[in-house]
């Protein structure tokens, strides 16, 4: 893309930060409210794709050295791994657990094993979504 895209780049620099912040919010919010790993991952992928569009595939790939296929696979492995953890304690597959912890700064905080599962989901979604876009863009 040789066209002048100063505006796109300037906007993208700011927008990417906003999108990533929002997707992190969506991700953390997902346990009790709308949100979660899937939508958090999808909006993260949107930020990454925006970077690819505005700065070009070569330049972004130089800075994000990551094989998104493997990222997706690792995500699924984490998700299945959390599901299997319950089995080791004699509970059904995919059983989740949570507890309240007194953390410094945050105070009484609820920590749930679902967040690990959601992390896996998010990585799988990011990996798949970005990989799809990259595959389409390679095709000429």
């Amino acid at each position, binding site marked *: 893309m040789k066209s002048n895209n100063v505006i796109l780049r300037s906007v993208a620099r700011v927008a990417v930060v906003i999108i990533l912040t929002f997707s992190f919010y969506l991700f953390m919010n997902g346990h009790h409210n709308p949100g979660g790993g899937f939508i958090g991952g999808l909006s993260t992928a949107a930020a990454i794709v925006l970077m690819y569009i505005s700065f070009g595939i070569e330049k972004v790939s130089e800075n994000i050295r990551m094989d998104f296929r493997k990222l997706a*696979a690792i995500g*699924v*492995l984490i998700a*299945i791994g959390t599901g299997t953890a*319950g089995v080791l304690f004699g509970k*059904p597959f995919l059983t989740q657990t949570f507890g309240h912890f007194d953390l410094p700064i945050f105070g009484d905080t609820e920590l749930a094993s679902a967040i690990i599962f959601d992390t896996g989901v998010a990585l799988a979604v990011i990996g798949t979504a970005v990989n799809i876009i990259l595959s389409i863009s390679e095709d000429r």
Partner: protein
Amino acid sequence: MSMNNLLITPVVIPLFTGMVLILFQRNIRLQRVLSLVALLVTSVISVLLMNQIRSGGIQTLQLGGWEAPFGISFVGDMFSAMLLLATSVVSICCLLYAFPSIGRKQEKLYFYPLFLFLVTGVNGSFLTGDLFNLYVFFEVFLVASYVLITMGGDKRQLGESLKYIFTNIISSAFFLMGIAYLYSITGTLNLAHLSIRIAEVGQDGLITTVAFLFLIVFALKAGLLLYYWLPGSYSVPPTAIAAIFAALLTKVGIYAIFRMFTLIFYHEPQITHLLIGILAAITMVLGGLGAIGYWDLRKILTFNVVISVGFIMAGLVSLTPEGITGSIYYLVHDMLIKALVFLVGGTIIHITGTSNLKEISGLIRHHPRLGWMFFIAALSMVGIPPLSGFLGKVFITQGSFEAGYYWLGGIGLLASLFILYSMIKIFMNAFWGETTLSVEEEKGTTKGLLLPIALLTIASLTLGIGAEGIADYVSQAAEELLNPNLYIHAVFD
């Protein structure tokens, strides 16, 4: 609450292994070993499951500990467990066939992970007790099959793949619509819960219409009358892939029809099951005409896939213990035998470089083992005792006659003649006659290809000769299918 975590393993093991293989894309040796180990473990687990179900009845697992109908149920009855075992055997043999034949390039292009994802989806479809999950598992194996069918990527293959993908996307859309209708009518998608609710309110005209919608969806997948996509798309991919498609994919559609029309939509058999019977009869006749009409080896074999779909359905139509027993015998037999004849067919094409029967002759001289194994498979498909197709044919025919469907039983027998003619045509033309190719002129070698074919022949012979040994299992499976209450109690108690 009963809980059996073993039920999830046939889904998790291939999925987990497939994901690990993506991480080690370049290490072909590791990929081969791990995929084989994963499938072997899965087959051992399915035997364990069969024995657990034999002694303890239908097994269930409520994922995450969420009770049915709120959570996702996994249910393993004898029917599912037997299909799981057959799936494992078939996929191990197709995998062994792929080792020497699929090619380095495909192996690096994620062949093994995709193969395992296909198995994941098929196993999941057999085990899930939730309609939406059934949709998801269908998509899992379909997406894997979309990639597998294009492997190699020549022009004709891509054309047929496109047809295959469009057909399946449309039927998946209908599947979703059916799910939406059913949910809006009954307020649930748990199969056992659906069965209870429809039994309570009665299967009225609207629900029967929705049943037809599901019938269309699964008939498209199974190739019941709506098989126009099948002969093309099953004859283009590499042999190992075509064989596992022929053995497994239509069978998942058949499984889904059996599940839906024995567990949920079983109240108006004079409408729904009669229609299935008519579809089955037309399928057998048209499939038979295709099988005897073509001179292309792969076309003949794919039309034989179509015939058997119709034949297996005939057992469901009767809704008698004999008919269902026959269908189960024949379904398991057909999975093994279709993989077997597709592998033999692919090997013939590999040796001669053509699929036109008129250009092939006298292979028996240099390939006696291949020839006789094909002959055994052919006789088994026709239903000669004591081979594996025999009991299924007897029971299905008996069931049809007992239920008063003489025309269906008669067409089933006629279909056997079609099968006999088409298989003997292949045997006489390809193996008999003057040997035209010397060993040096052959396009490919059978090195490594005969082992999986031999394993499947042994499996088929064992199923036929040892039919007495699994009779208890099959009759339990039939009993469970005919008594929806057994399934419902397993899920809710």
